């Protein structure tokens, strides 16, 4: 990788032509030059150059671990660069000191869970006077636009993630900052909400602000940004714009950074009618949630099968998936490999669960290696005495198999990028070798390279004769990862959709939309 901005469009760039070069570099906007940052001996940024002009939306894409998060942290004033310069409108700007100029919408909400939605919007902006108790008109409108005004007085910890993220967005929008940094802002929003958010981003850009969008979703980048900067190994390798800005081009650029990436494996699982009872690894009958999130569910998942449950927030899909792992109060009948599990309650070793919330799936005080083996017992500690050698061996194997990008298994888990943390979380669940692997949004906030690796490992685990049940919110994920898709709406299960019968994502999306509507309008049985 070159770290000379002038060389961009040259050897490293797959897309040539004048558009690929940074273009005229006036003093206006955000100019980042030669940014370097080390964590210990891990090099996170290695001479990064990026220019963001006012009036445009600059896309930033790169695999996990490429340095995106570090760039965001520096711009958000959470950490400081070791070298390099940041200039805003021609003036040197240190985000670490001058926080007011930047607003960041994070991929995981960084708010105050104990305050209400409204208080979160106001906190830090109360001014020097006594704490304001009421929202002003503009703030009310802002919350209303994001359709969270009706929950303004609810504590943040009691509202769903989707609302939390919208609160974060409202907070950013309420600040009259110069630089708006959107870091996977819509990963938990619905289609309509996303569209709304993007409209806002265009408005901000139109008003002459500097808007940066960090995203893994190629379609979004192509549709909404003016240019896309590709970050690989801590440098900006190329900038795509105009005609050259296509999904394929971004994907091609990103893949350059994936060492020896294998072609996508064929789905080898058997296809056909939904599973019969006898072949099922997991069987649910008359499975109902104690607080009514779903009722009377019958579901079978066969060995070797990946089943995706889809449904909007509140449909019961998320709760249904969690209930299989034993983390919801339920009634009814559940069988795993023919064994009847404790009815209605919890926890057997027959299933492993990974939460969508990475803060609930990893131990931040432990190393990467220790996180990987945290669920094991006899394997790492026969008769209760730890065997460090075994722990190292298992963790190193997992690191290689999951291609976790970490300097060593002894580094703290927090030093890894989001996608690599997710790989560690899933690795820790798989190494326990459960009959049923239960994953909630397995690739939320994960780059496409890591995504396809996670899918590959899921498929491999299923192929070894296990059942995999996932909750997903995105059709492309269901298309890539699943064999069967069920739609949950109003706590009821649709007939299954066989993914292989759909030639492309659009076709699957249409089928899912149709089923969703159908299931919702159907009278309750």
């Amino acid at each position, binding site marked *: 990788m070159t770290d000379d901005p002038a060389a961009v469009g040259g050897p490293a760039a797959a897309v040539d032509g004048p558009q690929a070069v940074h273009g005229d570099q006036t003093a206006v906007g955000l100019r980042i030059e030669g940014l370097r940052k080390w964590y210990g001996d891990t090099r996170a940024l290695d001479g990064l150059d990026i220019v963001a002009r006012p009036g445009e939306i600059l896309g930033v894409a790169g695999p996990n671990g490429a340095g995106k998060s570090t760039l965001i942290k520096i711009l958000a004033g959470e950490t400081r660069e070791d070298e390099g310069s940041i200039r805003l409108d021609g003036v040197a700007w240190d985000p670490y000191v001058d926080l007011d100029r930047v607003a960041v919408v994070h991929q995981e909400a960084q708010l105050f869970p104990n305050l209400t939605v409204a208080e979160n919007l106001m906190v830090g902006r109360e001014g020097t006077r006594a704490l304001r108790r009421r929202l002003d008109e503009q703030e009310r409108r802002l919350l209303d636009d994001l359709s969270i005004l009706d929950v303004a007085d609810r504590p943040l910890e009691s509202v769903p993630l989707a609302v939390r993220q919208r609160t974060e967005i409202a907070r950013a929008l309420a600040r009259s900052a110069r630089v708006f940094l959107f870091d996977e802002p819509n990963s938990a929003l619905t289609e309509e909400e996303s569209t709304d958010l993007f409209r806002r981003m265009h408005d901000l850009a139109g008003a002459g602000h500097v808007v940066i969008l960090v995203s893994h979703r190629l379609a979004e980048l192509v549709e909404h940004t003016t240019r896309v900067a590709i970050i690989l190994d801590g440098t900006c390798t190329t900038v795509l714009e105009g005609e050259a800005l296509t999904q394929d081009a971004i994907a091609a650029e990103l893949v350059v950074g994936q060492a020896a990436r294998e072609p996508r494996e064929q789905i080898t699982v058997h296809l056909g009618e939904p599973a019969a009872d006898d072949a099922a690894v997991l069987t649910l009958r008359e499975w109902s949630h104690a607080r009514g999130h779903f009722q009377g569910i019958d579901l079978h998942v066969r060995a070797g099968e990946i089943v995706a449950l889809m449904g909007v927030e509140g449909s019961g899909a998320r709760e249904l998936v969690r209930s299989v792992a034993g*983390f919801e109060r339920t009634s009814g009948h559940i069988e795993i490999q023919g064994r009847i599990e404790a009815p209605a309650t919890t926890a057997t070793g027959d299933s492993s669960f990974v939460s969508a919330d990475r803060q609930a799936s990893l131990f931040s005080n432990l190393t990467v290696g220790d996180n990987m083996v*945290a669920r094991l017992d006899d394997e790492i500690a026969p008769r209760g*005495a730890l065997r*460090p050698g075994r722990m190292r061996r298992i963790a190193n194997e997992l690191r290689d198999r999951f291609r976790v990008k970490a300097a060593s298994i*002894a580094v703290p888990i927090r030093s890894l990028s989001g996608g690599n943390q997710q790989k560690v979380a899933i690795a820790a669940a798989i190494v326990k070798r459960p009959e049923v692997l239960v994953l909630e949004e397995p690739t939320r906030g994960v780059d496409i390279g890591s995504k396809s690796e996670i899918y590959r490992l899921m498929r491999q685990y299923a192929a070894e004769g296990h059942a995999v049940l996932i909750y997903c919110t995105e059709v492309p994920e269901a298309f890539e990862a699943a064999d069967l898709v069920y739609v949950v709406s109003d706590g009821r299960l649709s007939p299954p959709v066989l993914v292989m019968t759909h030639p492309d994502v659009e076709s699957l999306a249409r089928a899912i939309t149709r089923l969703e509507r159908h299931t919702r309008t159907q009278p309750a049985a």
Partner: protein
Amino acid sequence: MTGSTASTPQRTTGGGGSPWYGRARDVGIRVGGLAIAILIVIIIFTALSKPNTFLTWLNAMVVLRYMSTIAIVALGLTLVIVVGEIDLSFGFMYGLAANLISVSWIMWGWPIWAAIILAFAAAALLGVVNAFLVTIVRIPSFIVTLGTGQLVFGLTLLVSATATLNPAYPPPGREVSRGEVDFFFGLANQALPLNIPMQGIWMVGVAIVVGLVLSRSLFGFRLKAIGGNPEAARLARLPVVKYKFVAFIVCAMLASLAAMLDFAFIGSTQPNLGQSLLFPVFAAVIIGGASLSGGRGTAIGTMSGALLLAIIQDGLALLSVGAYLQQFVQGSVTIAAVVLDRFTASLRR
């Protein structure tokens, strides 16, 4: 300690291409911070005590005895802190244990072994009650143990009837067999070579067990995981509730052990025993590097913290400093030690 909590120093996992700034340096600086603090305190006391009564073998053994009470209780508390909870009741448990032994033995005429069992059973019960309220009823441990501590103190007053008891001089009408007194006092008063105090031996034994449990056992590994992220531990099906029960029970029982040994050494009990332990024990654990937010703590760290506090206690006593100044110095040194430790922790990055 946010941000720089690389790993607990004595953990032996990981490695695999350890970088130059890795584990060895980590341990070096971690121990270094506390070692420097201890060294400074020793130098100051040596310089101040004229003629030198501080830096002598005999006084070192006195420090060792002071230290052992703090350390035994603090090692138990370390388990509770590591699993992410707080115990404020250990000092009162210490008082109850000592008084239960003396009252049941001297006043009720129980055999000594039954009296000791009674004390430990009471401790186990307190641990169970604490853990039950924390894990099942889900009340924050700070509040639970604040309450149970007071409750236990009340029990102590009731049981002891606020009397001071000494088995060698039982009150009129009570008799204590000479053999039992010898046995009991012998628990902490054996004549050992080099004037090594018996309680020091007990402490080393407890420290080895707790140290091995924390650093080399599945229990300790999971205790740290649970303390680091209880929600993740629950979702990963780690036995969160069970481990918290064990931590609270062990903490209360180690407080009872320390109480029994002190009783055996000193020879008498009174109802307000153990209340002065709250500060030094907590300070030892925190100086030792355990994180109050859970997931971090070591036996060696807690021992070093206890050593530092014992040295200060002893040194101030030797200098005949008034009680008021003692508190002042203890508080200052504790804060200074933690600041020094945070500073060296930032060097570790």
